[in-house]
């Protein structure tokens, strides 16, 4: 500090310039490194999963058509069959159904927070949503297992382990994702839209329904798709309540299984390189491909965003 004061103005200028350019370079290297690491990680996981996932078809000669279309899954029988359709169906079913429940709730909550009661609504709802994010999935699963499953068993048919239970657990889990992104989307709308609509004599509800919702629609859909992506990848909570059976469900109250639950149930028991293990990797590959589809949808929606 004292040294600095003793330096002349010119020297200080030169020194600070040198300092700055050094700092600039260091910062640039750091963030480039971060970006590179992230890209490498993503690319290598993708490559690894693709190679592993294709092995069951290339090395073990499991028919890809059978894998995707057959409903018969019995890898340990004398005449093994590898039909993963029930699991693909189960994954998609719980994902779409939970989005169906969570999307209206989440978007409704977002409108409440941004339009109806911006001050106290945010104050109350925000911490509630943050709390929901913080609850680990195993806790959701455990609550589902001890409360939801017996409830469905007593008020419906069957054992209670069902698509319905999985859907309800998942919709609560993805609610924060949808609400948070939807709130940001609604909040980002320029207030000129609101003011213009109100100035034309529209009521608050008319403004929300006719002006704000259509304007925010691409972002709201992005929120829903991201929520679905989270639901699609969730394994633990679903595994505890869905029942994990190999047959196609006939109703909402039937037990089912998803790709993720079958992977987590079997991964530890199978040996590396065996057919059973490889087919699990293939399921992982399908998960990745469908996740990519979700991301493509999000990107398409973002490109359509006008505001």
């Amino acid at each position, binding site marked *: 500090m004292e040294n600095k004061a003793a330096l002349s103005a010119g020297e200080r200028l030169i020194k600070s310039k040198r300092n700055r350019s050094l700092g600039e370079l260091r910062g640039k290297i750091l963030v480039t490194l971060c970006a590179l690491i992230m890209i*490498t*990680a993503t690319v290598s996981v993708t490559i*690894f999963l693709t190679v592993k996932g294709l092995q069951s078809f290339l090395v073990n000669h499991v028919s890809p058509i059978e894998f995707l279309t057959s409903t018969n899954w019995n890898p340990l029988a004398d005449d093994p069959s590898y039909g993963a359709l029930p699991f693909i169906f189960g994954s998609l079913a719980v994902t779409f159904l939970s989005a169906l429940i969570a999307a209206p709730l989440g978007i409704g909550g977002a409108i409440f927070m941004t339009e109806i009661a911006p001050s106290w609504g945010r104050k109350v709802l925000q911490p509630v949503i943050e709390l929901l994010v913080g609850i680990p999935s195993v806790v959701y699963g455990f609550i589902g297992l001890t409360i939801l499953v017996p409830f469905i068993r007593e008020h419906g048919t069957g054992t209670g382990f069902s698509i319905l239970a999985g859907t309800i657990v998942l919709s609560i889990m993805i609610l924060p994702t949808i609400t948070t992104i939807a709130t940001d989307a609604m909040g980002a709308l320029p207030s000129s839209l609101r003011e213009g609509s109100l100035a034309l004599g529209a009521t608050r509800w008319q403004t929300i329904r006719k002006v704000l919702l259509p304007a925010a629609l691409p972002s709201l859909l992005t929120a829903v798709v991201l929520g679905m992506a989270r639901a699609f990848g969730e394994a633990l909570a679903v595994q505890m309540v869905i029942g994990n059976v190999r047959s196609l469900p006939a109703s909402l109250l039937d037990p089912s299984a998803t790709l993720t639950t079958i992977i987590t149930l079997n991964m530890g*028991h199978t040996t590396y390189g065996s057919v*059973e293990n490889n087919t699990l990797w293939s399921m992982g590959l399908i998960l990745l491909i469908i996740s990519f589809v979700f991301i493509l949808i999000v990107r398409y929606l973002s490109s359509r965003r006008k505001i």
Partner: protein
Amino acid sequence: MKKTKLLSFAALLILLIGMLAACGSSNGEEQESNGSNETDQETDAGQGSESESDEGASDESASGSITISGSSAMQPLVAAAAEQFMSENPEADIQVNAGGSGTGLSEVSEGTVDIGNSDVFAEEKDGIPADELVDHKVAVVGMTAAVNPGVGIDDISKEDLKKVFTGEITNWSELGGEDVDITLVNRPDSSGTRATFVNFGLDGETPAEGVTEDSSNTVKQIISETEGAIGYLAFSYFTDDSVTPLSIDGVEANDENVQSGEFPIWAYQHSYTNGEAEGLAKTFLDYLMSDEVQTGLLPEQGYIASTKMQVERDAEGNQTDK
């Protein structure tokens, strides 16, 4: 301030990548639960093999470090034994992971770990060079069908048990119990518990579809809460009245009947080494077979001492008197 933040962020990222890399050779369950441990353990494994080759001459060594992985059913037993062993031999460092029998067998044949635990014979798993692995039958676990206490029976013939699990009998009243429908609780296809129950309880018949869960505690909870439910559990889970263990053909499901060979459904708990055990791995396996563990720790943890078995069984499931 900002710089340190950025630096710590970068460090975090690098750590994360390291964890990912370390988990690459390992299994899914572990990745989530103890990813950070694993990096340590793998370096330990490296050191372990070094020190073992150094001490290869003296088999009595009780120092160095080894890594053990595999069957989650065996994990509590081996971990408890390792803890006792380490307190007696402070020079030794033994890391015990769970992860499943398949993981244990794969990792020991790859040489990633020193001992791989499994609740099935290595011969029963695909892609494992069983002839290269050396089997140490550390303990025996008995298991039996467990039913919800409300079904009203506590003994079942093997024929009826098969009919129940294949879906031929669908109501407990057909077996003289209460009038409630039967709900099956299964394990996943690849589970060792399921393989044992199917082979020795159902004589190899494939069970009908039912709720499938992996963890014994979850299975126990489902059976205790669901009317008419039946599943299968190891003896050590029959600690309270929430589920009823079934006797089979009048033979009660207990340790003595398993030891005498009268009760059919039991499995060895195997510890496999790649080639003959050496150094610390050998000392530890000898310790597992010692009376201290076999008569002390094993019954405490709900396992049956393998040294007390009056019968033995080979990989094909043939049972012979010892």
